[in-house]
Every structure is written in structure tokens, then in C-alpha cells.
């Protein structure tokens, strides 16, 4: 635990070094939110609601999911980098599991971005665009739980991508394709309410809607009562399945390590 916290703190602190960079990346998130809201405003025109979804719900969806995605940063290239420079050999003999140290680093980044990127970009968006408040205070708390579970699913996906570094020389293309699929199917780029029903049904059988779509819907009160626990269960289930796959890959992969440099 002590080692875990040490990794976490280092990642947190290293974020504070480049301040200009940090400022610009918050602006970047706000620009994204602004663009999507402007497009949808033009699409809505004079309509108050389309498919029984109001324009305010669309903006709230974009603000929350884009702000979340700016926080949920996972580095898909940790293991690949360690294989390339050979430092994986020292990591294997350390008394802390490599995956635990990766998680600690990711969490350090997340805590930093949560108190900076997330809160700032939401505040700026509320001032300039406006968004719906949570349905109730309880909804807000339930949303936070959904958000944590959503991150777990995304993290488990990232671990799978990282582990594939044991078999292929460069995970960049897999990582990129994963990000495309996540961005389209989890509701960052288009609110899933507007997709055709067949596509929506297919997505409900994938882990992607667990990441951003479920938390946002909890926040808006579109998922209520028992459905919330059903949604949580779905998120947990996907986390368990993906984590298991990542685990199998780790156990198989670490037997075939060969170090190319160092």
C-alpha cells in the first residue's frame, strides 16, 4: 500500500510540472464541448425536443462525457515501453505487481485531472453553455459510483491493449482502434439516444455503454430505481470479464518475454 501511494503521488506531482501544457489541455476540452454543443444547436434549430430528448439533455451529455474522458486517461503504452527499453526485467523482480504500479500511476493522473480538468471544464461549460442539474442529490451520488465503475471498465480494456504488447511489436494501432470504438459507441461523439434501435441493441451487448453512457443516464435520471442496480451489475460484469481476459494474457505473456534492449 505504501508503494502504491508512492507511485500515485509521483504521477500526481509530475502532472504539475508543465503548467502551460496543462492550461491548454483544459482549453482543448472546453473547445470540444463547445463544438459539439454548437453543432447540435444547429441540428436542433427551433425544435425543443427530438426523439423526446431536449437540447439541454444533449449538452449535458456532451459536457459530462467529454469532461469524464479528459480525466480517464490510461496510458496504453507502459508495458510496450518497458519491453522496448528492457526495464520490464527489473519490474518483474520488484516486490510489487507491475499491474498494480500501472494502476497507481493511472490513479495519480486521474486524481490530478479530476480536481483540475474535470471541475474546471464543467464550471466553464456551465457558465457559457449551461447544463441540467442532476435529477436529485441521490442521483449525483449514484452517478459518481457509476463513473468509478465506468472507469474500471475502461481501465480493464486498456490493460488488454497493453498486454498485447507481448505478442505484437507495437500496440499503437490496436490502441487507436480501441479509442475509435470507445469514442463512437460510448456516447462521447454522438448521444446514444439518437442511434437506430438495432445499433443500440447491439451496443447494449458490448462493454462500451458502461463507460460513459450509463453514468450520464444515471445523472439525468433516465435510469432509475432497480434499473440502476441492473446497470451497476452490467458494469461490474464487464469489468470482471475484461479483467479476467487481461489476467490470462498477463500470465501467458510474461512467460514469453524477450528483451530487445537494455
Amino acid at each position, binding site marked *: 500500500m505504501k508503494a502504491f501511494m508512492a507511485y500515485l503521488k509521483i504521477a500526481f506531482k509530475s502532472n504539475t510540472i508543465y503548467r502551460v501544457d496543462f492550461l491548454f489541455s483544459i482549453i482543448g476540452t472546453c473547445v470540444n464541448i463547445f463544438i459539439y454543443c*454548437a453543432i447540435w444547436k444547429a441540428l436542433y434549430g427551433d425544435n425543443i425536443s427530438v426523439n423526446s430528448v431536449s437540447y439541454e439533455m444533449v449538452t449535458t451529455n456532451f459536457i459530462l462525457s467529454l469532461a469524464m474522458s479528459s480525466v480517464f486517461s490510461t496510458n496504453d503504452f507502459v508495458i510496450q515501453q518497458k519491453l522496448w527499453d528492457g526495464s520490464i526485467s527489473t519490474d518483474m523482480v520488484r516486490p510489487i505487481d507491475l499491474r498494480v504500479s500501472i494502476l497507481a500511476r493511472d490513479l495519480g493522473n486521474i486524481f490530478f485531472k479530476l480536481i483540475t480538468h474535470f471541475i474546471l471544464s464543467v464550471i466553464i461549460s456551465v457558465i457559457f453553455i449551461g447544463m441540467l442539474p442532476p435529477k436529485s442529490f441521490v442521483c449525483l451520488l449514484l452517478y459518481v459510483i457509476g463513473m468509478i465503475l465506468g472507469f474500471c471498465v475502461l481501465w480493464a480494456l486498456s490493460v488488454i491493449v497493453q498486454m498485447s504488447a507481448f505478442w505484437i511489436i507495437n500496440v499503437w494501432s490496436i490502441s487507436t*482502434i480501441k479509442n475509435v470504438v470507445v469514442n463512437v459507441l460510448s456516447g462521447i461523439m454522438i448521444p446514444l439516444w439518437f442511434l437506430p434501435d438495432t*445499433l443500440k441493441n447491439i451496443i447494449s451487448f458490448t462493454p462500451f455503454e458502461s463507460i460513459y453512457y450509463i453514468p450520464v443516464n444515471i445523472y439525468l435520471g433516465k435510469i432509475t430505481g432497480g434499473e440502476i442496480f441492473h446497470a451497476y451489475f452490467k458494469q461490474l460484469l464487464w469489468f470482471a470479464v475484461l479483467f479476467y481476459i487481461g489476467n490470462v494474457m498477463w500470465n501467458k505473456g510474461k512467460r514469453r518475454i524477450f528483451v530487445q534492449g537494455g
Partner: protein
Amino acid sequence: MEKTYNAFSLFLCYSKITIKSWFQYKVDACMRSLAVFFREATGVIVIYLTMLTFDEINGWNTNELLLLFSFVYVTYGILIVFFTGLRDFEFLVNTGQFDRFLLRPRGALFQVIASNSDWFAAIGHGALGICLFIFSANNVQIVWNFWNIIYCISSIIGGVFIQAAIFLVVASLSFFFIKTGSIRELLYWNTRKFANYPISIFPKFVKIFMTYIIPFAFVNYFPATYLLDKDSGEFLGKTFCYITPVIGIVMFGAAYLFWNYSLKRYKSTGN
């Protein structure tokens, strides 16, 4: 004359080496190009899915939007063959590798440009752009004649130079700020995101920004409105549709002066 020939043969030599190094791992190279293609197609997929519910966005239908997109991709595909060195310039400064460039008996900018080209992006963006252009131009039924073709080619070249100028300015800023990833993100990639949609849907300050400050509107919006014979909104009528190549050359010239100015203030980070 001999000097030009010399520079040209050196450029070819560099290109051969970069192609060899980028395609060192063949399967990986194919996968990377495919991944770039998919990543860039995301915007297109999203537009397509959105337009299933809505018929048009401010008077632009799906095919017209795709034509707008295609200009961005085609120009980027060409841009990245020549100017990857500027895009990734930050790393040369960060790692101190740029010092080596300064010691060689050639212009620093020539070496930076010649020594790198991102072939995966070129193939991914270029293929997507050409597919989109052919598909959408076919669907909106543009009447092709000699002047239209000349117009398209000159606008694309102008568009490449506009973007190259932005890269060059950001690269020059690396001399002052060591990390410029986010500035580039803001000045180039975010502006480009705006450019994916007709700028007439945005508030006035965005239109001004896209026309006069970072003139990305000249890369795709004005050429597309000309080809589609659309009203370009509250702008200076048709004249803006014809000056893309001029803007490109002027901007690149100005950016080159800024580069020269900044280069004199370069302090190495060491290694």
C-alpha cells in the same frame, strides 16, 4: 542550378531512408495505416449516424458535409508527406537532437522537412480523403470542367500551405516553450475540428477566428461553398472563394520569417 539539383537529390535520399524506416515492420505498417484510416473515419461515421435523425445542418446535407470533410483529409494527406518534421519538431528540441541538425552544412529547416514523413498518416488520410471526395462529388453532381479542376488543384495546394504555415509557427514556438503539444493541439487540431463542419453554424467570433486568425476556413469551407455553389454567408461574397492559394503562400512566407527570427533565440536543452 547545381545547388538546387543537389538539394533535390538529398531530399530523395532522405525520402528513401524514411520510407524504409517507416515500413521496417510490414504488418505493423499496414495496421497503422488502417488504424489512421479508422480514426479519421470516426468523424465521418458520426456525421452519418447523426444525419440519420436530422436531414440537414444549416442547409448542408450529408453529401455536402462529406465533401467538406474530404478537403481536410486530402490536404492533410499531402501535408504530412512533406511536413511531418515540423509536426514532430517538439521532440527534436526536447531530446536535443536538433543540435545535430545545426551542425550540418545545410539549412536547418530543409533538414527538418526532408528528414521525416509520416507515411501511415499520409496513406490513411489520403485514402479516406480521396474516397470521400469521389463519393460525395459524384452524389452532389458537380459539373466538371477545365476551370473547376484547376480550381480544385490550386485550392488543395493552397490548403496544404496554410496548414504547413501553422505547423511552422508552432514548431518555431518550441524554441521558446519546450513543450508545445498542447499549443499545437489548440491552434491546429482544435481549429481543424471546427473546420469539419460548415462554419456558418458557429457564433460570430468563431467565424472571424476561422477566417482571419487561423484561416482554416480557406482550406475547405470556401472551396466547398464554391464547388457547391452555395452562399458563403455574411462573408465578402465570392472573392474569398478564390484566394486560398494566395493566403497559403503569404502565410507560409510569414511563418518562415518567424522561424528565422526564433531560430536565432534557440537555446539547447542539452541531452
